[in-house]
């Protein structure tokens, strides 16, 4: 895992739930089929109400019509990101759409765990309210070692909480590689 993550930011509000991240009707595609798995990218965040798609102004679809990958690589969220169902299709869909990191104020438990154990991307949580710090489309640069994120477009820097012990799982790749490394499984 690179310790520097750069990309364009997509800003969302509080309580973005898994039905908004990947609507239930799309949970049927095969995650291991190269063609079908692209559908998860296509429909990532497709149930977010229009007014909240890309804050502050909204009306910016995360993935544009006809595309399978998003123009945005970093998601900034509010409280309780990923609440709702246990579907791992949610972090999977975000990763398929090209997400490299999320920085939210707080996470729902299962979503956070899935993001880490599945090795999809690091879910950071911020001390500060990042919703006023970023606008959708800003360019950002995350430095994991220093636990800071820079808003390159607006020339500001803000810190977030270090990942703590779970970083070992992400660095290993996923829960399985971690457990192997630790000798927990063969």
């Amino acid at each position, binding site marked *: 895992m690179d310790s520097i993550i750069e990309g364009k930011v997509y800003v969302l509000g509080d309580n973005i739930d898994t039905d*908004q991240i990947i609507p*239930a009707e799309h949970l*049927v595609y*095969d995650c291991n089929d190269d063609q079908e798995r692209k559908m998860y990218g296509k429909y990532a965040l497709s*149930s977010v109400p229009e007014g909240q798609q890309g804050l502050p102004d909204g009306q910016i679809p995360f993935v544009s019509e006809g595309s399978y990958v998003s123009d945005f690589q970093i998601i900034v969220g509010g409280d309780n990101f990923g609440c*709702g169902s246990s579907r791992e299709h949610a972090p999977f869909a975000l990763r398929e759409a090209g997400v490299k990191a999320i920085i939210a104020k707080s996470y729902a438990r*299962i979503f956070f765990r*899935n993001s880490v*154990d599945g090795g999809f991307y690091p879910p950071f949580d911020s001390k500060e309210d990042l919703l006023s710090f970023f606008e959708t489309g800003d360019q950002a640069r995350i430095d994991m070692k220093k636990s800071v994120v820079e808003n390159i477009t607006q020339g500001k820097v803000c810190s977030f909480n270090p990942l703590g012990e779970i970083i070992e799982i992400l660095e290993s790749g996923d829960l399985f590689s971690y457990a192997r490394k630790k000798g*927990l499984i063969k």
Partner: protein
Amino acid sequence: MQFGSMTITEKILAKASGQSFVQAGQNIWVDANILMTHDVCGPGTIAIFKKKFGQDARVFHKDKVVIIPDHYIYTEDKYARRNLKIIRDFAEEQDLTYFYGAFTDKYKGVCHIALAQEGHNIPGTVLFGTDSHTCTSGAFGMFATGIGNTDAAFVMGTGKLWVKVPETMKFIFNGTFPKHIMAKDIILEIIGDYTVAGATYRTMEFAGQAIKELSMEERMTVCNMAIEGGAKNGLIEADEVTESYLKDRVKKDVNYDFFRADDDANYHTLREYDASSMRSVVAKPHSPDNKGYADEMQDVEVDRAYIGSCTGGKITDLKAAAVILEDKKVAIDTFVVPATREVESDMDKVKVNGKTLREIFIKAGCAMTDPSCAACLGGPKDTFARTQGLERVISTTNRNFPGRMGSKKASIYLASPYTVAASALVGRVTDPKEYV
């Protein structure tokens, strides 16, 4: 707190980790008694299991991996059909003892209710499930929590998983609930007070005289929605009500532990409620914590009523609805979906004033179908009662996020079966108080 004192959740996790003492905040590895999965998350879990443990890998125990298809059953969607086949093939290959396959006489319906009815819920043990409402089973004094496919694949192969021991928030209901108050009102009241993130990472434990007086099905509804408060698990101490429910359902040779908390156990929150002053709660769109009371919302129009799901499709729920609908006609489209085959067959046995529930629903003008999750989570376009446009639904389900029942333009109001049935008669949100 004295060293050595534990909550019920801590005691269950201590036992499952082979230690005499664990404490909130610790990361521990625990043994799973059961891993449950279904048709939506089963295929993904199986794929990861095979990828990580090899094509010929065997599950950790053939009696302990329970697969219950329930989400997308009655649909022509070709991918949904394929998912049913993947889990069926896997169950055969692994010779699983408990596979409740769709379109067979073993089919049950909604997984959390089937787990209880088929005797898989064992007090004092650990249950992992690839469904966030796995916390339903906490009603049996056990640790039950939802996990994702990667974690589930890990459990499938090893029978183990790491967990952070949660702190407990304890909600105590003193006195007795009024007659028109149901489990849904209880949990929506708490979620309204604490928000959808108020219990994140924690246990929500429910206690007090009024909770002890609840049936197992009502307890399951309360614990089911612990996840809507963000909790890791819901929990109610097992007692004689639990025991009598288990009596005919659990195999004779199974041992259970009825754990009690130590007197000086440590709680994150202790909150007392007066059960007798409770009112009928309605969660307004688009969040379960958007609390309103039915008696203040009588001008809110609804055009559809939905009675079903793990929180609202059990026989207690359908009977409550039938008490209100008996000898009356619904004013709006009303759908009834029994949670499981057992509930469905009970609809022909359980009676209100001499009439079976099925007779009452038919006469009232409700549409009914076979047991499954149906429109609770939207699902494929041809799903029974799925919203397609601007519907305003009052529903006994547990989530009302945008798009949850299909259309992201629809509005969902969550309420108890009493409130939903009373509202169905009027076409507006209606307090069931006068009807019961």
